[in-house]
């Protein structure tokens, strides 16, 4: 499946905007991911062609940034904070409970394709520790407890 017309024009527009093709690479990847959940080889190559950069150049950027996904992810990405303030408030109990409930570890996706679980550094929600961010809009959730994880898992996937 190739990129939608809308995405293609957004990418070209981004390039004219600030700083040219190189500077537009990350934002292009972000836009692709926002629509498709992740960045496939096909989409990466198409973006490279649109921007007039090499696949290697755009891949270099795509693989450096931890929140550009180069593998398919679940409908809902759950990013659990493993920072110190969350650790001090029981983040690892929450982590264990989520892993048990979903049957997956960090970096994995459930077989039904619903959830991907990833650990992330401090999400700036230390006043809601233990915290996490979920879904494509990175909604801040917390304080999490092993007892209330079903609420987060059940929330709207957006």
């Amino acid at each position, binding site marked *: 499946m190739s990129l939608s017309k809308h995405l293609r024009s957004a990418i070209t527009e981004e390039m004219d905007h600030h*700083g040219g093709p190189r500077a537009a690479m990350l934002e292009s990847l972000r836009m692709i991911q926002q629509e498709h959940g992740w960045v496939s080889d096909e989409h990466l190559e198409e973006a490279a062609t649109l921007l007039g950069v090499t696949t290697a150049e755009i891949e270099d*950027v795509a693989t450096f940034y931890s929140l550009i996904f180069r593998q398919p992810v679940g409908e809902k990405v759950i990013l659990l904070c493993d920072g110190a303030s969350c650790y001090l408030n029981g983040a690892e109990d929450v982590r264990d409970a989520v892993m048990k409930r979903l049957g997956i570890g960090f970096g994995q996706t459930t077989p039904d394709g619903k959830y991907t679980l990833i650990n992330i550094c401090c999400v700036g929600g230390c006043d809601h520790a233990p915290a996490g961010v979920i879904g494509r809009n*990175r909604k801040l959730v917390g304080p999490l407890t092993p007892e209330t994880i079903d609420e987060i898992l059940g929330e709207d996937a957006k």
Partner: protein
Amino acid sequence: MSAEQPLTGRARPDRRPHTLKEWRKLGGYDAVERGLKTMTPEEVLDTVAAANLNGRGGAGFPAATKWRFMPKPGEAPGDGPSYFIVNGDEMEPGAFKDRILLEAVPHQLIEGAILAAYATHASEIIVLIRDAYRDAIANMTRAIAEAEKAGYLGKNVLGSGFDVKMWVHPSAGRYIVGEETALIEALEGKRAVPRKRPPFPAQSGLWGRPTTVNNVETVSCVSHIVGNGAQWFRALSKTEEGGTKVFGVSGRVNKPQIIEAPMGTTAAELIERAGGVSGTGVLRCFQPGGGASGFLEPAEADIPLDFAHVAKAGSMFGTGTMIVLDESACPVGVIARHMAFYARESCGWCTPCRDGLPWVAEIMARLERGEGRMEDLEVLRDTVEIAGPRGRTFCDLMGGAMSPLGTGLARFGDLFEAHVREGCCPIARDYGRAAA
């Protein structure tokens, strides 16, 4: 309230940002009018210098001193703009202060950025914001569009002859992006690996043009300084360093929160305002300024928190967002989490950091499991010695990582040894994990 809390006093509890119209009613953009219509760039710069505004991004470098390195029009070699960059990458463990300033009071940041750009002769402002702060990205983008429409951004702002553009660059993860030269690489569409200095960004920064990078909170102070004067700003503080500080208190406290208070407020007072120590209720230690700041102990809870006083006590004021540990929390466990974080976030450019940090993280994990050996402690001490603060690495990520480790070893050496001797975490044994 808002006189004492200029930065957060106008923020709504639900963080819903003001429209430009609402912000104008609260005195918004008055300082921009004043700065651009009645002051020269040099006068704005001198006012900020007289206010003793130190950078709030971690190092506490005086803002105006950095600004003075920026060339005046005609002095910069070649063609092209100068850049003013706002650093909103906030990812340090325990740091959650820039989030509120970006989300709830975006117009305050725009005001400060316009004045800062004016003072540094920059005509393009870029706000880099981390991916996880989606509300911040949306709110800033909207506020910039409003300010542009109202003529505070664009060509010939308020008839001053000053042209300035502003936009948001959303990032996509990786802590190293917050390091200012790595951030510049990121904006150029490269992997965010720090640059060699010199040349400093003011000489050759983004696209080789003169560039200044400041933290969100630093920039948010500027309109207040220009609007109310340097003396007023200095008087907000209890110490020599000007202003209030947007402190954060988290970890083992009952009501973790952001507290804007005078620079120089003590940890004891902030902890009390955050509902007191949780867990056992007894303070064991704290990191005053995020993950990369060294540990301090209860005896130091009464020192005024500012860059100079905290440095004198052997730590670093850093981001001013403290992490609190009660008696039932183990510093070895906290350090182990920090080391895993810094190891993961190393950009991989230089060897001590790329290879040393994973090793250190592994040793810390082993210690915590009760499988550590006494020789391990020597390795940790040697690493601190070799790569410690201002050590032999390309950027400060490794040095930052060594501050909690070094101060942890120095202050809680017996606890490290007890982990080895007793083959377990003695604190977890005595208090149980339930305390967590």
